């Protein structure tokens, strides 16, 4: 069952004028990207910096509007919903970010940060904070600690706990394991696989690292300078990349 359907997503950003009276040039961040994600399935998006990966995530999360195209989540067009309606739908799709140091308020206890999505929804915290901490392999008592008491990998677990606390159907992960060490990265990838099976999560997983994407994704989309170079079954692309660029990403992620 298709949970997320993006069609013809395009987003330009205006650049500074080059001449006083000239038109403002445009940067095409993403051009005509279409894809679907079903429940329990992972779409991997790979590309270098500047390829439009994060713009794609921002459009899917409805943090900004596309210049063309649409995103339908569970049949509802996210970008035509009213703000209150969008807000009511947000618990269903959550995001985790790259930097586990920047995404947690250093002055607040972890439990407070975890409870924020629940307070925004207006639901009761109850046992949910403790439960979600246990679910990501931490302890219920960790809620009373501050972020600086945790390692990078543990912080990323906290960020994941915060994202799943609203029981979302879709998780958008933007370079969620890029800042982590190899052995910690493997633990977090396994955790994401566990949670996906447990909760039936659909995932949009963004990374520049082919090896990471290969471990996690069913389908794949390769971006370069805002254009979709190739997309389809992950195993097919990994075993027989059609584009030189995809091949070079694979070489770069090569085994030692």
């Amino acid at each position, binding site marked *: 069952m298709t949970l997320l359907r993006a069609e013809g997503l395009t987003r330009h950003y205006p650049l500074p004028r080059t001449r006083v009276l000239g038109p403002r040039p445009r940067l095409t961040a993403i051009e005509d990207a279409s894809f679907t994600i079903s429940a329990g399935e992972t779409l991997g998006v790979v590309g*270098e*910096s500047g390829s439009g990966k994060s713009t794609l995530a921002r459009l899917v999360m409805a943090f900004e509007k596309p210049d063309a195209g649409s995103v339908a989540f569970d049949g509802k067009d996210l970008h035509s919903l009213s703000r209150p309606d969008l807000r009511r739908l947000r618990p269903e799709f959550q995001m985790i970010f790259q930097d586990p140091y920047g995404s947690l308020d250093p002055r607040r206890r972890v439990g407070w940060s975890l409870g924020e999505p629940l307070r925004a929804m207006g639901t009761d915290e109850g046992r949910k904070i403790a439960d979600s901490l246990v679910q990501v392999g931490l302890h219920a008592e960790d809620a009373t600690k501050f972020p600086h008491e945790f*390692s*990078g*990998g*543990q912080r990323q677990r906290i960020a994941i706990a915060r994202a799943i606390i609203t029981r979302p159907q879709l998780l958008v992960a933007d370079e969620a394991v890029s800042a982590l*060490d*190899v*052995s*910690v*990265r*493997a*633990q977090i*990838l*396994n955790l994401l*696989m566990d949670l*996906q*099976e447990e909760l039936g999560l659909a995932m949009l997983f963004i990374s*520049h*690292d*082919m*090896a*990471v994407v*290969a*471990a*996690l994704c*069913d389908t794949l989309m390769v971006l370069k300078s805002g254009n979709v170079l190739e997309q389809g079954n*992950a*195993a097919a692309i*990994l*075993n027989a990349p059609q584009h030189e660029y995809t091949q*070079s*990403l*694979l*070489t*770069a*992620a*090569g*085994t*030692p």
Partner: protein
Amino acid sequence: MIELDTLSVTFAAGSALRDISLKIAPGDRLGIVGESGSGKSLLASCLMGMAPDAATLSGTLTIDGVDMSDADEETWRPLRARRVAMIFQEPMSALNPLRRVGDTVAEPLRLHFGLSRDEAAKRVAELFAEVDLPNPERRARMFPHELSGGQRQRVLIALALACDPALLIADEPTTALDANVALQVTDLLVDLSEKRGMALVLISHDLASVARSTERVAVMYGGDIVERGGTDDVLHAPQHPYTQGLLAARPDPQAALRDEQGKRKRLPTIPGNVPPLSGLAQGCRFAGRCALERPDCATARPVPHGPRMLLCPVVEGAA
């Protein structure tokens, strides 16, 4: 050329490097691999004579036959840049945003060699050409923000090369770069090392780039070198349980994604986390996370052994 003998660095919280012995000969290419907190960057700063003030050092560091263990800043200054140079992870923060990159690279040339402005500018253009920056004269007049991340790292390599160092230490030089650009920068470092006969110490958590560019590798964990040997030998037939765990934890892009039941395959992991400095075992640093652990591992300091240097009492050494 450079020799470290049983170098140890201790902080109030615990010892951060324990009995590190290394030899670097001219033209050597050595990789130092380890995760956060393994002590690899600290080791690099020791090689540059820049150990933090809070640290207590023991052991000896010899450069060109001269014992530098107790050398002061005055003794170090001429050695830095001219014998040992270093490049860092973040190419943006290592460059002064208000200076043209050519002027930054010219500074050591004027300072150490007393070149005139014109001579220095000419040399900078040569250096920029050597690190494959297109259109070197024009690049030299640019500011850091006008360059891409890969180009900035090339500028820093040119800066490090300016005084013809005998050893270049690269501390995570490609971590902030895109995969393709990282590959080019690593290849450039190898190329320069070969052409100039310059020794290269590549510090990285990226096993693939170390495999590509070095002849020997030292694997660090908790301030120990746990395994050291030929890069191919160590990375293709790791013997220390930590090296094995680290290599297994890398996802393989070509491997099958799901098992027969259609369940997604999990990655092999090393149980637990790297403990803080104060929480490391007094014996083997890897104790508590190791599958081969024996009762006395946590308390008895392992002795390095084997033709390939191995720091594990349980595993028999091999080449």
